[in-house]
């Protein structure tokens, strides 16, 4: 089945369709991870986006029932050089093709993904369309592509109600802006008693459960669109220990008067070096973000850069000096990617314990 990928600037790529048939518009982004496609497909931060995998062979180890980061496929479309029709791994239950088809996601293969990636690197993130409908006429689709906008993506992916994951340890209120399951797993592994709140939950509602700490999750889209959430965080500041990841990190910065900006083509992959300035060690991190906190906008009296990206110098972590709050841009929960920064969860646990001692 022939398929076409068209970018908003008129660039056309021809390939073969796989997964579902039809047409899909989205923001095109690339991910440089060599493994972890299943985690990528199910990561809610990709809501509204069509993902290119730069590694050419995707689907090699098939699809298993465990490595999912949310209850459904989150990407709008999937672009690969070659999908593997004959996967091999002991946990695999189906092929990538069947998985996409079953979940009605359109994929396209046979694309010169390196050329496409270089184009996005040079020109910045673009919108585009994948279509298996023939004949395809770009002129007919220009308006559709250009008019595409990801509307309130956080509300599309957040939990509809409070969900409780029982644990015997510290009680954590986890605000879900599009949470990856491994954040929950990382807390549960540390015996936490986890309550997942919908993104729109208000401060009182959250504090009502008397959490020992609050976690702000990752999530999709432009942080500035989340006004209500920013206000909530502002209210929560200083009341409980807070640990934010990705979108949670950006929202906390906005709640504290700092600014965020869009990166030219974002950071998406498993190999980004980030320096923990306090430890003076560089870790390899998992990343997925298109926006970043702008260092010059930070109130240095209250906020300190705790982590920095070694590739482009962007802010990767903020410590709030006058209260037990810290946030990171990267993904310490990994999945996919290296687990080198898993220690941050331990630091959060430690912070909650300290605070508890103070309160007691």
């Amino acid at each position, binding site marked *: 089945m022939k398929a076409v990928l068209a970018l908003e600037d008129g660039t056309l790529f021809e390939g073969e369709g796989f997964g579902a048939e039809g047409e899909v518009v989205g923001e095109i982004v690339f991910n440089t991870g*060599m493994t972890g496609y299943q985690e990528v497909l199910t990561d809610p931060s990709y809501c509204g986006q069509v993902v290119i995998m730069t590694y*050419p062979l995707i689907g090699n180890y098939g699809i298993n029932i465990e490595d999912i980061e949310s209850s459904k496929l989150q990407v709008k479309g999937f672009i690969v050089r070659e999908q593997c029709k004959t996967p091999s791994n002991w946990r695999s239950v189906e092929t990538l093709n069947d998985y996409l088809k079953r979940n009605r996601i359109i994929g396209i293969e046979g694309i010169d993904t390196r050329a496409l990636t270089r184009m996005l690197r040079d020109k910045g993130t673009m919108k585009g369309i994948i279509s298996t409908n023939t004949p395809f006429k770009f002129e007919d689709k220009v308006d559709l592509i250009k008019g595409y906008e990801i509307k309130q993506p956080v509300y599309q992916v957040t939990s509809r109600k409070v969900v409780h994951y029982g644990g015997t340890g510290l009680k954590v209120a986890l605000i879900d802006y599009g949470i990856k399951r491994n954040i929950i797993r990382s807390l549960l592994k540390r015996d936490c008693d986890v309550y997942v709140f919908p993104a729109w939950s208000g401060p009182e509602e959250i504090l009502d459960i008397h959490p020992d700490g609050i976690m702000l999750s990752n999530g999709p889209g432009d942080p500035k669109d989340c006004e209500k959430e920013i206000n909530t965080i502002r209210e929560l500041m200083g009341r409980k220990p807070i640990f934010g990841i990705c979108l949670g990190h950006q929202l906390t910065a906005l709640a504290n008067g700092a600014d965020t900006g869009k990166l030219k083509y974002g950071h998406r992959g498993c190999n980004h070096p980030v320096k923990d300035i306090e430890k003076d060690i560089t870790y*390899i991190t998992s990343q997925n973000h298109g926006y970043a906190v702008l260092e010059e906008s930070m109130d240095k009296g209250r906020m300190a850069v705790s982590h920095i990206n070694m590739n482009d110098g962007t802010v990767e972590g903020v410590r709030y000096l006058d209260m037990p709050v810290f946030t990171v841009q990267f993904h310490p929960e990994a999945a996919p*990617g290296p687990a080198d920064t898993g220690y941050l969860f331990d630091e959060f646990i430690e912070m909650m314990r300290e605070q508890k001692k103070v309160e007691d």
Partner: protein
Amino acid sequence: MPKVDWIKKVLVIGSGPIIIGQAAEFDYSGTQACKALREEGIEVVLVNSNPATIMTDREAADRVYIEPITLDFVKKIIRREKPDGILASLGGQTGLNMAVRLAADGILDEMKIELLGTSLQSIKKAEDRELFKLTMQEIGEKVPHSVIVTNLQEAVAFARKVGFPIIIRPAYTLGGTGGGIAGNMEEFKYICGKGLKLSMINQVLLEQSVAGWKEIEYEVMRDGADNCIVVCNMENFDPVGVHTGDSIVVAPSQTLSDVEYQMLRSASIKIIRALDIKGGCNIQFALNPHSFEYVVIEVNPRVSRSSALASKATGYPIARVAAKIAIGLNLDEIRNSVTRNTYACFEPSLDYVVAKVPRWPFDKFSTADRSLGTQMKATGEVMAIGRTFEEALLKAIDSLDVKFNYQLGLSLFESKSAEELIEFMKKPHDQRIFAICKALQKGISAQEIVDITQIDIFFIKKLEKIVNLAEEVKNSGIAWLDYDLYSKAKKIGFGDSYIANLANVPLDSILELRHKFPVNPVYKMVDTCAGEFEAVTPYYYSTYEEKDDAVVSDKRKVVVLGSGPIRIGQGIEFDYCSVHSVKALKELGIESIIINNNPETVSTDFDTSDKLYFEPLTKECVLDVIVKEKPLGVIVQFGGQTAINLAAPLHKEGVKILGTSVEDIDVAEDRDKFLKLLEDLEIPIPPGSTAFSVAEAKSIAAGIGYPVLVRPSYVLGGRAMEIVYDDQTLEEYMNMAVDISSRHPVLIDKYILGKEVEVDGICDGSDVLIPGIMEHVERAGVHSGDSIAIYPPRSLSPKTKETIVDYTVKLAKALKVVGLFNIQFVLDANHKVYVIEVNPRASRTVPVMSKITGIPMVNVATKLIMGGRLKDLGYAPGLAEEAEFYAVKAPVFSFPKLTTVDTFLGPEMKSTGEVMGVDRDFKTALYKALVASGLKIPERGNVLLSVADRDKEECVAVARRLSELDFKLMATRNTHAYLSKAGMDVEYVSSENIRNYIQSDRVALVINTPTKGKIPSTAGFLLRRTAIEYNVPCITSLDTTHAVLEVLEMILHRKDSDIYTLDEYSK
């Protein structure tokens, strides 16, 4: 942390000669390290006995010692140079072992010299099996059920307890020497006995076999501040059980999910931290294909063959970074030289697939055991890059430079039945992949093959895809070969000649199609970051896609062809030549482009040439690059026979071959044309003729008289050259060796038993410069690559030299040589000079001659190729003045690793590497060369003599000299009888007792000359193999014996030897 400021001078230890398990990769890593250190303002002292390396160039280090890497010599260097630190982790196992020995010796403490990078403690933790096991247990990493034993009784007890199969790994050896998998007690006892003997510390590890699990490797780096990164992971095509050096390896891993990938990655980081390694290390895991269970098989606390591969596969310069870490820099302070915008503290992301395929020496060793196990047998390897696994694999197979009729060698198994194929596939073998393809073609299911081979179905399915597409092309034929099918075939990696083969049409028909469509490759960049950042590496590979990354400049440029994988007869010396040619082009302001496919080499380092195309050295791939780059021409004379063989096909396509013309190359290589030329020049050549039948062969032999040198004009997987002494052997040879026919005649030449001499010359078309003449220790009949060679010659009269120079000049002029050439001569008993052959290209001895004479031969040759004249470059024609120093080149063999290969020296080359000994005094130079070559020269003990009838008379003198040196003599039946009759006191050893004597350490040296060549069942063969297997030196030529005796006399007189830097003799 910035660089440690007290480190001002560092001694870098190289890896010595090329042997199986330790090849060119350490020239690459050592050269990178020297460069990295000097960039930081550190004075670098280097020791390596291998002259055919870039690292031993004057430009590579501040002070270069081409001396043996033995405790004695390295200590001398240390005392003279007083370095602040020693960097040993870049010189392979040789370097590492030397570091351990230096530390044990006490000299490091005494002189307050730091072992830089990984500490002694860390080396021990990784290398000592018991300590390693303990360390792994402490951090909760599993290792296979195992035990360390120091004697056979303990070993047997363990085997009784855990059952078979059991893997045997001797401690402190390289390439798994002496190791193996035993399936029963008999095998077990044999391998254990050998392993105990070969281990430096008489220690072997026995472990329960996890054969069949996935073998996964991680290349990890760590600095002094505890920053850790994983450069690359790799998955072996073959499951655990085949040495990783003998397995096809793919990067990155293909069948691991992120969970598995990260699980092993995290374990790797835990391990490198526990071992406290500062620099690079390689960690091998066995992963259960049906669960998350894994075990750590091995850690190499140093850069390795795998790290060289990982560097080339990712673009990340591991050795360079390891060297910087060793002097105190941290990963986040070292610039990434690929992007120049980022730091070394990151993990490369690949947007392509890399396949490495080993190159085995079995084409040379027809009697070798080709089965693969834990003992490495490959001499070299190739790497290819593609956008799919299939493409990378097929390109790699093309790069092997082994001629199959098909790209996948399917004809190899054409006549085999399904049952035979199944039987064949059961045991790992160098040709198994081709058997698998044939089996798939015959309809044996992928699953059945997985069950037999335990190779992951992912890979088998990929092979099936290749086989199926081949069938499709075959069935469609040229008539139905449309654009879609053709481009599909190109995308999967089929070469045009393969497609032509499949479609059963001449290549030209396919090329016509290709131009008509047109379908052409694009070149993608290896940039470490999957296109995420802009990169500056001029490092490319071809693929069939849409966009090209390679920017073609409008500068004057030249393509230099490399020599492909390291193999017997074509070693690292040609990489040395290619690199020097590139450097000369740079001096001339010409853009240099390298095409090569050997990941171990300096030539494929991304900053050696202006542009690197990592491609198969096939006509198609080279032409594609030429079409794209439009160079002034191509230089073929530095890339060994691989490159020379491409001269004519490229020339036919209108490519300009720079240097000696294709027509003249042909005159030197075509026997008839060459004979005619010699006749015209009145230069003698040993008489001989071409035989088309057995009878004809006999009559030619009768005419010229025995002994004769026979060789097939066309060699196909069989036996090549041999010296034959009588009719019977000639008949045997003719019947066994070759399928004699009018198309494949046999050449029969008079074998002249005399001194062999060789000359390397440089010619600009009219003037000829001869840097020097070398004479061989062994008489003609021993391949020049296997003989000890001496410069300047000691036994040639001025008149003989004059004749040699005269012939050399005449030949070079007649062949209108532009660039380098090499001529082999033989002198008969009356000192008459005969020419044996002329090679219109760089030879094996170019590095030795360049280094001893100080004439940068390749540099000069390249300038001549580009139009320069010798006179303008300041070189007077004729024989250059002889140096004041002697240089002795000695061959190095890898026999312990190649079981069932006969070790005697003959007309077919067997050595894998070479060393050079240099001294003012000839005997000392010879001594250094022999010591560096690893020959254990015993100073006392029993010498076992067993020589052929023709050598018996000469043997008496040898025996006498040995006796005078207080050696006890032993001999086999006939030799014993002869020596006794001559009045010598000799102990008789019956052939049944030989093994026993050797096994029980009662023989210190074996001197054996072969009676009949190449028949494995003879007593002589068994004697030679037994000696090798029990690590007892065995000399197979009386000429070599004389040389050894000279050295022995010197050693016993306790004469001390001096050491010299390259600058002291190479003016």
